[in-house]
């Protein structure tokens, strides 16, 4: 009885709140599918963290929705010598607490990058090429590098600028508590409940386009069905990572607005290149379950057979329900250093069987295909579909799905023979080349995510050459050549590039971004119809 009275009171209260349209219109309720792990912008390189950092902080070089560089806290930049970059800073910019933004803050920020303790995925790489920083005047800064370094502006799109005074001794926990979550960005943090929600208020002194909403309630709703249901019920105004299973229905709904763009994340299969041709790969056996005595994946014909055995169109249409584009390379068409003419490998099961026979496996072999079940869109469904297709050419496939944390640990220890994984690229071929396709080397910081341990001297040489080439066109040709070789060698088996999808209720429009980031400044009230 008591409960029911309280419930009735709650219902009445919520009706009253809902009845105040003016107040409601000022607050934007966003639901995101992946949890934000920290408010420290230099702690963990992760798309959800970067999205929230982009709301609180600014970068010297910003990016537009198509991931092209645009001026941020730097109004302009240029290479003033072969090893010197100069950035002209924006005047009259203040932090949320009123401190002025100057070149000192940039120096402080770059120095902090390698000194964030316990960072699970560090931003230190962006500070490494800089050997010396020179403050020319309060609004001009020069970065000196040891070698010519063409990637400087691109690197700067990843570095959020802190205040040298406010953040002098700030630890990651201080950011998470909200105490020093202070930047120059369009939103101020009001409240942060880790893993649940972040509340923002508009920064009325923002130097750029003023956001349309006064407050933002940024909620982490990791369950797909719940996120969709909350959007439909009006609890949320915008959601990201729209589940593909709900896509058709949401597209039909006149009260829902779906915005999408082909992203920069390639989903691909990694293969075991670590074990030599005469060694056993951990998850490959002959058809009776006995060790094979060799690693068939060292034979490029086998790798090619496994690649063309996959009907990528079927996966894109049936598993991804159209929210993916089959691809043969990391970057989508139209981006810098996309390899022209390199299409998604054509599905041909007969040719795949012939290639296997040529390579000495007329009856195939057994393999286990592993993958995460909570990281990429429909990840565990994709590996089951690939398992079907491989089994049909005689490579009997067992499929093993596990949670991301377990999976990525095992992949990093090279425990798999084949595995599904994804990579969200910067729009520059050097990014996937350096992280996935280059020979693994801790010293150089190369191949950090090269979990299959592919290694090709020619690819490495071309990459090295490109990294000190300042001429953008020559550099692009080098990157294209390197990527083409990796594709011919089937370093990895590319499947598709994900489509990034947002859905908003009528009255809101959300600008889709290729980099997956879900930011409140990208939502606007829709023009009244």
């Amino acid at each position, binding site marked *: 009885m008591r409960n029911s009275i309280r419930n009735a009171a709650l219902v009445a209260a919520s009706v009253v709140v809902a009845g105040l349209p003016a107040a409601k219109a000022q607050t934007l309720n966003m639901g995101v599918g992946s949890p934000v792990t920290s408010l420290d912008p230099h702690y963990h390189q992760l798309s959800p963290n970067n999205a929230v950092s982009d709301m609180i902080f600014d970068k010297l070089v910003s990016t537009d929705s198509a991931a092209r560089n645009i001026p941020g806290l730097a109004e302009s930049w240029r290479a003033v010598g072969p090893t010197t970059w100069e950035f002209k800073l924006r005047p009259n910019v203040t932090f949320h607490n009123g401190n002025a933004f100057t070149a000192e803050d940039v120096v402080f920020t770059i120095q902090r990058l390698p000194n964030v303790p316990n960072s699970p995925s560090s931003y230190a790489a962006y500070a490494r090429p800089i050997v010396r920083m020179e403050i020319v005047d309060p609004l001009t800064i020069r970065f000196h590098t040891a070698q010519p370094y063409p990637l400087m502006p691109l690197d700067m799109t990843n570095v959020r600028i802190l205040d040298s005074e406010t953040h002098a001794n700030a630890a990651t926990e201080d950011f998470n508590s909200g105490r020093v979550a202070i930047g120059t960005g369009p939103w101020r943090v009001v409240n942060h409940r880790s893993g649940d929600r972040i509340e923002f208020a508009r920064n009325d002194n923002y130097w750029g386009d003023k956001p349309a909403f006064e407050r933002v309630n940024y909620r982490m709703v990791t369950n797909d069905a719940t996120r*969709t249901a909350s959007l439909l019920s009006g609890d949320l105004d915008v959601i990201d990572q729209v589940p593909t299973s709900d896509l058709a*229905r949401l597209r039909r709904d006149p009260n829902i607005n779906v915005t999408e763009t082909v992203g920069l994340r390639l989903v691909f299969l990694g293969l075991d290149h670590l074990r030599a041709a005469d060694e056993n790969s951990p998850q490959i056996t002959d058809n009776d379950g006995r060790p094979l005595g060799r690693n068939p994946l060292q034979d490029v014909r086998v790798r090619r057979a496994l690649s063309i055995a996959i009907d990528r169109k*079927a996966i894109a249409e049936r598993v991804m329900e159209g929210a993916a584009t089959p691809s043969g390379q990391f970057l989508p068409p139209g981006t810098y250093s996309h390899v022209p003419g390199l299409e998604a490998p054509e599905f041909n099961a007969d040719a795949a069987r012939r290639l296997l026979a040529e390579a000495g496996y007329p009856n195939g072999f057994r393999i286990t295909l592993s993958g995460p079940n909570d990281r990429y869109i429909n990840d565990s469904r994709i590996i089951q579909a690939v398992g079907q297709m491989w*089994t049909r050419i005689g490579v*009997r*496939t067992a*499929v093993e799905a596990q949670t991301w944390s377990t999976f990525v640990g095992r992949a990093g220890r090279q425990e798999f023979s084949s595995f599904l994984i994804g990579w969200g690229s910067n729009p520059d071929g050097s990014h996937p080349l350096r992280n996935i396709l280059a020979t693994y080397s801790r010293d150089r910081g190369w191949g950090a995510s090269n979990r299959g341990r592919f290694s090709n001297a020619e690819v490495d040489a071309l990459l090295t050459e490109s990294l000190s080439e300042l001429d953008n066109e020559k550099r692009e040709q080098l990157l294209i050549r390197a990527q083409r070789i990796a594709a011919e060698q089937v370093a990895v088996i590319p499947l598709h590039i994900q489509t990034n999808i947002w859905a908003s209720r009528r009255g809101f429009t959300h600008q889709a971004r290729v980099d997956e980031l879900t930011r409140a400044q990208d939502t606007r009230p829709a023009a009244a119809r």
Partner: protein
Amino acid sequence: MSAVVGQGAPIEDPAKIKVETPFRRFCSEFAESKLALGGLIVISIIIVVAILAPFISPQDPYDLAVLDIMDGRLEPGEKSGDGSITYWLGTDDQGRDMLSGIMYGLRISLTVGAGSAFIACMVGASLGLAAAYAGGKTDSIIMRIVDLQLSFPSILVALMILAFLGKSVTNVVIAIVVVEWAYYARTVRGTALVERRREYIEAAECLALPRYRILFRHLLPNCLPPLIVIGTMQVARAIALEATLSFLGLGVPITEPSLGLLIANGYEYMLSGKYWISFYPGIALLVTIVAINLVGDQLRDVLNPRLQK
């Protein structure tokens, strides 16, 4: 029996007079509830279907080579792309025939359910007997462990065990055994405490029979009725627990789904109107558990001496 009373006619033919053995009486009392009889018939059908699944199912749902992603999420009654199979209950997202999937899923559910209940029964009954017979410290220790075990929610314990052991069907069985043995132990101890003061135990002790023999040949058979009742109920519980764990993705491998995993696979499609992927496995699970519970209820009534007429 009621027919005889109703007609009131004396039965002359001695050949037709049935000797009332305890088993006959048990059967006729059990059959008094038509609902329980129905449950028994349903269980029998389910068991037969599960055993014969490889021979009568339209497809081997665990063979990746016969599944076709292009047949994914077809509605009930549609034909496969090559026209060879009609999917009477539709297909899931991988193009797996739901009817075959359910038949094979029942196999896993019943095996895991019955298997784990049996092992839990062995473990629990032995410990319960030991506690009752030995008394004193042994009794206290075992029963405090039981209390501790029962104070934790079973799903939580099962999740912890699977998180520790990793996921596989064997580990699901282990988890269910760990969760359930305490129920058997407590039941058996209660009955055995009463029975062990009876004269026949005293007699057996006077004959200096070995202890294990007194325990298992004299004490245990007299504790059986409540054990059978609780065993039946626990099979249903074990099946539900296995389905829950698989639904949460901790049970069977994704290419060999049990009922719980089939439901989980379809759960995301509920909002988009593709109800059949979750609905039919859900019905199969529901019918199985209800049927077992009906039988269990009636068993309890029949075997409970206090309710004896």
